[in-house]
């Protein structure tokens, strides 16, 4: 009992100074040190665990930093998607052109709805599955048609068709193997973009290539070349072989020269290459 405690006691409180002095003389027990250690450690631990104690810089700025990080990541992701042609994914859905065909798996529609598929994404899948002649070409092709695409049928046209085929002619994967709708759309967009890119590259190469017959050709050969315009190389080779068989060796040689200009590196059959 401290002096202050004694002063705080009421003046009329029963007390006995002699007994108090005698008691203090005899009562000197204290708790063992290990108990002190346990209690002090617990007190420090509890205080250390208090949230308001942790007023450090990191804790104070935790939320703003987290928000900033989320914002930066979101912007980066959107930018990346836009750079890779993801504007299709972000574009508003086109009006639904037609109902799903009867051949579609009944389990597919709910799966697409679950995966967040929109009407637009459904349409894109339908377009891939059943390209209709009645639909405008722009609806089928995700990018504007390249200038060369409207040219008359040429060997490049066959390549273009082949480039477009994988998007349309792939067999339907089993439902369990099918990626979610959004992923499927993304893949389809990438395929379409790759095909369009190939078409554009071909168109540029096509523009650089000499299109018309050489002015040095004889009129008869020029007519042959005009007749073969847009035909596949095999047609050209057949015509050259035919000229050789019919004895028109000069015309065949001129036509072969024109063929080599148009299809450099194309393998020549033995009877034509002579």
């Amino acid at each position: 009992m401290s002096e202050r405690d004694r002063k705080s006691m009421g003046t009329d409180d029963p007390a006995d100074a002699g007994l108090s002095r005698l008691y203090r003389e005899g009562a000197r027990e204290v708790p063992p040190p290990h108990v002190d250690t346990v209690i002090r450690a617990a007190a420090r631990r509890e205080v250390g665990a208090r949230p308001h104690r942790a007023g450090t810089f990191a804790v104070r700025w935790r939320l703003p930093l987290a928000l900033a990080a989320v914002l930066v990541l979101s912007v980066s992701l959107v930018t990346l998607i836009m750079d890779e042609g993801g504007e299709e994914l972000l574009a508003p859905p086109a009006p639904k052109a037609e109902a799903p065909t009867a051949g579609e798996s009944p389990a597919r529609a709910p799966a697409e709805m679950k995966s967040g598929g929109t009407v637009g994404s459904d349409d894109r899948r339908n377009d891939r599955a059943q390209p209709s002649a009645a639909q405008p070409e722009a609806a089928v092709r995700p990018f504007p048609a390249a200038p060369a695409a409207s040219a008359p049928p040429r060997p490049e046209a066959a390549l273009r068709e082949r480039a477009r085929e994988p998007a349309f002619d792939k067999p339907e994967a089993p439902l369990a193997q099918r990626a979610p709708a959004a992923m499927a759309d993304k893949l389809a967009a990438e395929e379409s973009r790759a095909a369009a890119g190939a078409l554009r590259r071909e168109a540029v190469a096509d523009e650089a290539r000499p299109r018309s017959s050489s002015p040095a050709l004889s009129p008869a050969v020029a007519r042959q070349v005009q007749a073969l315009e847009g035909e596949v190389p095999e047609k050209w080779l057949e015509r050259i072989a035919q000229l050789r068989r019919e004895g028109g060796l000069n015309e065949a040689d001129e036509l072969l020269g024109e063929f080599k200009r148009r299809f450099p590196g194309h393998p020549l059959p033995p009877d034509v290459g002579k």
Partner: protein
Amino acid sequence: MAWSADSRDEDLMLGYCAGDAAAFDLLYQRHRGGLYRYLLRQCRQGAVAEELFQDVWMNLIRARDAYTPSAKFATYLYRLAHNRLIDHYRKHTRGATLSYDDETGPQIDEAAAPRAAQPDAVYDLKQQAGALLRLIEDLPEPQREAFLLQQEAGLSVEEIAAATGVTRETAKSRLRYALAKLRQGMGEG
């Protein structure tokens, strides 16, 4: 904040509530001995006293957010200790528990015979202190508690009443009986 020997208990406790472990250390240093002796004299077993002592401080630590300096800190601390003791008594169904319901306690004449009251004995201070401790052990628990709260915690009659949950008059009566018995036991009564 730098705490000193002059810092009030209540300020130290508030400092600890605000997260200052140094305040707790000082507070603990002030009250560890008194609280331990209070519990030891009440339960009379060292191991039990240690357990109760630890429980009381842990309760104080855990309930620190609920602490408001509406009363003296010692009153608050010994109130926790009193409640813990009651729980202990109830758990172990000691007959002595009943004496908490006995507000007046036995009359002075019914007190145990003073062991240290032999007329020809000459005691030095330590011997007298030992005799006093034995007399305290023989006191009824409410009276012993009132005496210990006065001696160890420095509580006034009002504060003893608050700590033990009785009226002021009851606390005063218990304390008066306790002192009378002890005086009588020591040959002064």
